[in-house]
């Protein structure tokens, strides 16, 4: 019985009297480096891959269907679980789509709180992404250093909203808690000691020749291909396309903040290779630090949440909202039929398109490169399957 629907064929090729076979390997759902529960059926000729077919669905939890049962307010904790590494962005996406359905405006201070939480989460998510990428390539130490910094960010967010991973910080109309006293000092102290550590991380692994040899010129995705395959976020920017939802379709208070959008330029290989995607993430961490410092300086006083009725009944209609999550442009679509429960909720995530390109770029790569490719595309399984 074929489990994926892909028939396993044994191809025998004879050349000069030597018959060779293709190997069909199963990089199964239990594997130390597939970033969640993913499965790849790899057809390889020795070390060189011929095909790498992804098999997704192991983490499907019917989150979109659950939205139709729990209602608008009750769905907010579920959005944390859609992508638990960048949970604040999912919260923000759902909050924004409900606000657009009902025409609610979030007060200024609430928007600033949202941006602060989101940018901290972006740093944490990128730290995890680059940490696991270098771990897959073989270096164990930078992974722990990245996670040490992530722990500090989690401590800060724990003070802010009470949880370390599934924050449930934002509500429809704003955020649930204001910044606690002393939060700004702690955050700025953290940022001050974090920036030199990023340089240390670069000294340790990013500039390391062995590492660059592993990731440069591997899995080059051209800008055209990236757009055709619907890649978003650092994957798209790594291929040279300067597109960031925070700048191009500005939402929240991002128009008032000054920051650059790093784009891959092929400094260690060609534009669009794994190294570009990796270095874009490192540079985005620096940009997020800049954004955070500006937010703490510019935050106005005032309420942080707008008045929203307990029984939230937006008028019938639909709304589509885009948020620049750590993994790229995340789309949130909600259809309301006038009752307390949404008629349909649909989430469009960046990892889903990321995994669709794995098969295309891994033709001709080695088995060791497959791991580098998956890690550089920052694929997290819960986002793919929801």
């Amino acid at each position, binding site marked *: 019985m074929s489990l994926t629907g892909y028939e396993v064929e044994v191809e025998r090729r004879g050349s000069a009297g030597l018959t060779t076979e293709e*190997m069909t*390997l199963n990089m199964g759902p239990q*594997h*130390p*480096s597939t970033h969640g529960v993913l499965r790849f059926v790899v057809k390889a000729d020795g*070390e060189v891959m011929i095909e790498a077919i992804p098999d997704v669905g192991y983490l499907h939890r019917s989150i979109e269907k659950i939205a139709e049962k729990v209602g608008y307010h009750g769905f907010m904790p579920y959005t944390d679980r859609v992508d638990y590494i960048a949970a604040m962005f999912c919260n923000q996406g759902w909050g924004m789509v409900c606000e657009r359905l009902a025409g609610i405006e979030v007060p200024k201070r609430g928007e600033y709180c949202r941006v602060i939480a989101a940018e901290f989460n972006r740093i944490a998510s990128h730290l995890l992404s680059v940490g696991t990428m*270098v*771990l*897959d*390539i*073989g*270096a*164990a*130490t930078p992974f*722990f*250093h990245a996670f*040490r910094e992530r*722990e*500090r960010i989690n*401590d800060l967010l724990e003070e802010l909203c009470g949880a370390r991973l599934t924050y449930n910080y934002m509500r429809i109309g704003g955020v649930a808690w204001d910044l606690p006293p002393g939060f700004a000092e702690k955050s700025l*102290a*953290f940022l*001050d*000691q*974090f920036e*030199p*550590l990023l*340089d*240390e991380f670069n*000294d*340790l*692994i990013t500039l*390391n020749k*062995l*590492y660059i*040899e*592993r990731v440069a010129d591997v899995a080059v995705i051209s800008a055209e291909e990236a757009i055709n395959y619907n890649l978003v976020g650092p994957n798209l920017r790594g291929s040279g396309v300067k597109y960031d939802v925070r700048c191009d379709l500005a939402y929240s208070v991002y128009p008032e903040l000054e920051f650059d959008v790093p784009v891959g330029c092929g400094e260690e290989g060609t534009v669009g290779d794994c190294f570009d995607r990796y270095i874009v993430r490192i540079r985005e961490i620096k940009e997020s630090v800049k954004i955070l410092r500006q937010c703490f300086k510019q935050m106005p006083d005032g309420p942080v949440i707008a008045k929203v009725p307990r029984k939230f009944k937006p008028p019938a209609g639909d709304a589509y909202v885009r948020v620049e999550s750590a993994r790229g442009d995340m789309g949130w679509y909600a259809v309301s039929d006038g009752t307390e429960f949404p008629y349909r909720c649909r989430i469009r995530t960046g990892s889903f398109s990321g995994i669709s390109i794995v098969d295309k770029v891994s033709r001709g790569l*080695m*088995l*060791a*490169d497959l*791991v580098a490719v998956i890690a550089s595309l920052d694929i997290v399984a819960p986002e793919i399957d929801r």
Partner: protein
Amino acid sequence: MQGFLDRLMAQGYFAGVPAEVVYAIGMVGFGLVVVLGFILTVAGVTTFVERRVWARIQSRVGPNRVGPQGILQWLADGIKLVMKEDVVPHDADPRLFRLAPYVVTMGFVATFVVIPFTGQLVIADMNVGILYLTAVTALVVVGILMAGWGSNNKWSLIGGIRSAAQIVSYEIPAGLSIFPVVLLTGTLSMQGTIQAQGWAPYHWFVFNSPFTFAAFFILFISILAEGNRTPFDLPEAETELVAGFVTEYSGVRYLMFFLVEWGNLYVIGALMTTLYLGGWQIPPVTSNAVVQNVLQFLTFFLKSYFWVLVAMWIRATLPRVRVDQLMTTCWKYLVPIAFLNLIGQAVWIVLFPDGSRLAQALMTLLGFGIIGYFFYRVVFHLRRARPQMQFSPLS
């Protein structure tokens, strides 16, 4: 060992026993002492030390609960592995699968026959010692291939084949880097090589000439590759192949592979020390034979263990190389440079038959200069990360 036993017989012990029997029993007995007492302990403690060293590099603590400071952790791990169920995968080749760990262990333990502990204590100081060492470590390849194929697991097979290619390829630059030393001493015996060096750093072979200096680094890289250590640990690349050729092993068989990997570090250290760092040579401070032997043992052990620590440190720092990059490094970089080294060293010996004091002094200065610059960079990094060191976790 033979000389030691001869001296004992001359003093009247073992009267009435034929000499060959004394030699046989003495060597085998000492071999058993070495294997059970030294190898098992050192390999076991090395696993513990590696975990603590790794942990400190990674800003965490490592195992520290079992026994004071966790020093009995390796015993606990060993006992746990011994008590595990004996699992042989379905459709695995029954004989190859079961035999592989023991072939690998054989290849590893046999190297200890020629490794000297002190000036007199070595199981057998063969006159082809170094050649014997390189030959016997190649047995490990056979064992790994058996493990890879016999596991009936495609990932193990890939791991086994990678390892075979790796070890066989890196024998060449390793051998080529041993030859400059052989040219200097004219003998292949381990004790002979150590006796040709002196106790002071500028008498060590590493600082003898620029060519031995370069050969030192090439040898270190090659033996790391032979020992399947990062950055060359593809056969057991955790994140790619789960555990490479040892995926299907558990229990005592896994313990054997484990032991060989960590014990091999000591063999690497011993080889580096013997060939390039003066072995057990100590300054002439005492004439008491027992004290001399103890000091020599400590010198040799500490020098070898230093390289064990360096190998662990490198493993914590560097990423893995890919298979084709591994082959490129070996055949396009290390082998040509090792050849040129060998020719250069031969020319050097013709030019300076008794060695050049100036060159030795310069190389010693260069060596210590590199170490000094290294500590300068360490201090730079510490200064830059000073704010982080004062930041403590919230709880």
